[in-house]
């Protein structure tokens, strides 16, 4: 994987460049927008990491030029600009994600993987939050202790709803919406019943209850 890193700050650039190499990416580091555009014309990159506050040519201008050249390269903005306006301009301008400084390298790498996955068009067949993974084809759930647990259709639907966004808390009514179609009568305590069943199969720590709000699966394990 070849990555183009556009970052003018020498310390940050050095750190990211090093970390990308550590993560076995082939990374080229340029420090201004014009060099970045030149590099993109001569070399194929799998992903661009773009800082917005660049000398000479602003990051947003670089982004506009890249997209104007019909270059569909996956692009992730890394910036200290945290206003909603900048964020919207970046995403509307064709960026695939927007990461705010300061960030952890682990998060940058995870976002890069997510962008590459989306751009690669590979439909996800497995949902995973680090504790539990769910195979969307075989409908089997796996944890470290109990691999390959077969789930019922409703158990699967509930766990899938939670695993789509790990860390998000879903309320009872939101879970019920995902379990029952329109017009189907909702059985009382169905959600508790299913969660109880899932915990018995996968361990009690898999699904967490947040008192008064709802249920979730943890984001980082």
């Amino acid at each position, binding site marked *: 994987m070849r990555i183009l890193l556009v970052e003018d700050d020498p310390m940050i650039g*050095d*750190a990211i460049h*090093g970390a990308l190499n550590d993560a076995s990416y082939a990374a080229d580091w340029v420090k201004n927008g014009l060099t970045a555009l030149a590099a993109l014309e001569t070399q194929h990159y799998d992903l661009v990491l773009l800082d917005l506050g660049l000398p000479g040519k602003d990051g947003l201008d670089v982004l506009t030029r890249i997209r104007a050249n019909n270059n569909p390269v996956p692009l992730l903005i890394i910036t*200290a600009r945290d206003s909603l306006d900048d964020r919207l301009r970046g995403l509307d301008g064709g960026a695939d994600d927007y990461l705010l400084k*300061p960030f952890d390298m682990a998060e940058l790498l995870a976002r890069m993987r997510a962008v590459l996955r989306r751009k690669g068009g590979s439909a996800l067949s497995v949902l995973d939050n680090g504790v539990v993974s769910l195979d969307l084809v075989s409908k089997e759930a796996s944890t470290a202790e109990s691999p390959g647990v077969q789930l019922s259709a409703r158990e699967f639907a509930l766990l899938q709803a939670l695993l789509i966004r790990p*860390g998000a*808390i879903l309320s009872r009514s939101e879970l019920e919406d995902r379990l029952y179609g329109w017009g189907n009568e909702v059985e009382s305590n169905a959600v508790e019943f299913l969660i109880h069943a899932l915990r018995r199969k996968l361990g009690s720590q898999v699904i967490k209850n*947040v008192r008064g709000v709802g249920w979730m699966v943890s984001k980082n394990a």
Partner: protein
Amino acid sequence: MDGFKKRLSESVQLRLSVTLSLAILIVAIVAGVFAFISAFDEAHEMQDDTLRQVAVLFDRQHMTLKYPEGKGIAGDDEESRLIIQHLADGNKASGNDDDTAPLPFPTTLADGLSTVNVGGEAFRVLVRTTARGERIAVGQETGARDKDARESAWRSLLPFLILFPVLLLVVGDLVRKLFRPIATLSSEIDQRAEQELHPINESHLPTEIRPFVVAINRLLERVANAMETQRRFVADAAHELRSPLTALSLQAERLSGADMSAVAHERLVPLRRGIERGRNLIDQLLTLAKVQAETSAPTSPVSVHEVYRRVLEDLLPLADIKHLDIGVEGEQDVRVLINEMDLMTLVKNLVDNAIRYTPEGGRIDLSVVMDNGTALLQIKDSGPGIAVEERARVFDPFYRSLGTDEAGSGLGLSIVQAIAQRTGARVSLGFADEVQNRGLRVSVWLNVANG
């Protein structure tokens, strides 16, 4: 009395009222005395004229005198009675009093007016020599004359007595009305929040005060500029610090993945924690600068439960580390009128504080209820709480309670207060457990969205 003098020298309004009232009083007294004296004299002159006319009438019509025998003719009033007699008859007076005519006037009186004492009472007497050569005296008791004169003089004072209090009231009211714009202005400025530095509207003010208000407006503008400069400096400084800190934390993160001895690994942990703390502090500084600056109006009603949920999603990992039981109490949601980001930031800082200061295994409760037409948001924890005497100070930036080893930014409650001040919310601190004086309970009152 000293207090009054002090107030008099300090208050233009009072001085004006008192001075005008005194001026009116003096003018009224002088005019009154003058009117009194002239009315009094006028009355006397008229009465002298009457005496003169009676004497002339007597002379012209050649009347003869016949003294009444008895006393008491109907309609007669001894007090104001007019007496005519031959001056020479004074000698024939039957007694030495004024009951029966003729009266004992001295016969030596010269022609013209004089005042004579008869039987202890003063008489005004006109002596005239008639065409026939008789000398007649026309007299009247001065007591009655003076009484009439006084009455007429007092009557002339009446307008002043009515006018004086009326004028005082008018002056008092006028002065108060004239000074009302100043009173309104000062109360308007008084009610302003810290951040409201917009200029004062001077168009409806009297021209005398306008230069003063213009000067205040210029000062307000300078203060606003200075505050803006300072705020921008804080924001810029924090922003600039972000880059090196990002670099530092990325390098530290890389380092932790590298091969190194167990000792080095151990020493890296506090280093990374320190960097994390610096990052957190810079984030909070930026947030504070931002919430102090922004004045965006709320666009749509915000669900408090939705905000609680999103804050919990963010902070649950922190709460899990300390095994805290954190949750929302109550089913009823309330929709409030506030910018969503503001409410997120406010709740997040309060919950973050609660997580920091609640000991391992503790409990944190979030709730929202309606309270007298406003939304009451409460965040309660089972931590040590904040002592009553510290409650005013904990909102100051970088203030930390004694005896806490928590490495917070010290800005959380300042951010909360800045948002509250800008959005018109009210924040109060209390004990969650009021019997044992433990646990912090933060209450926030917010305006409810209508409909």
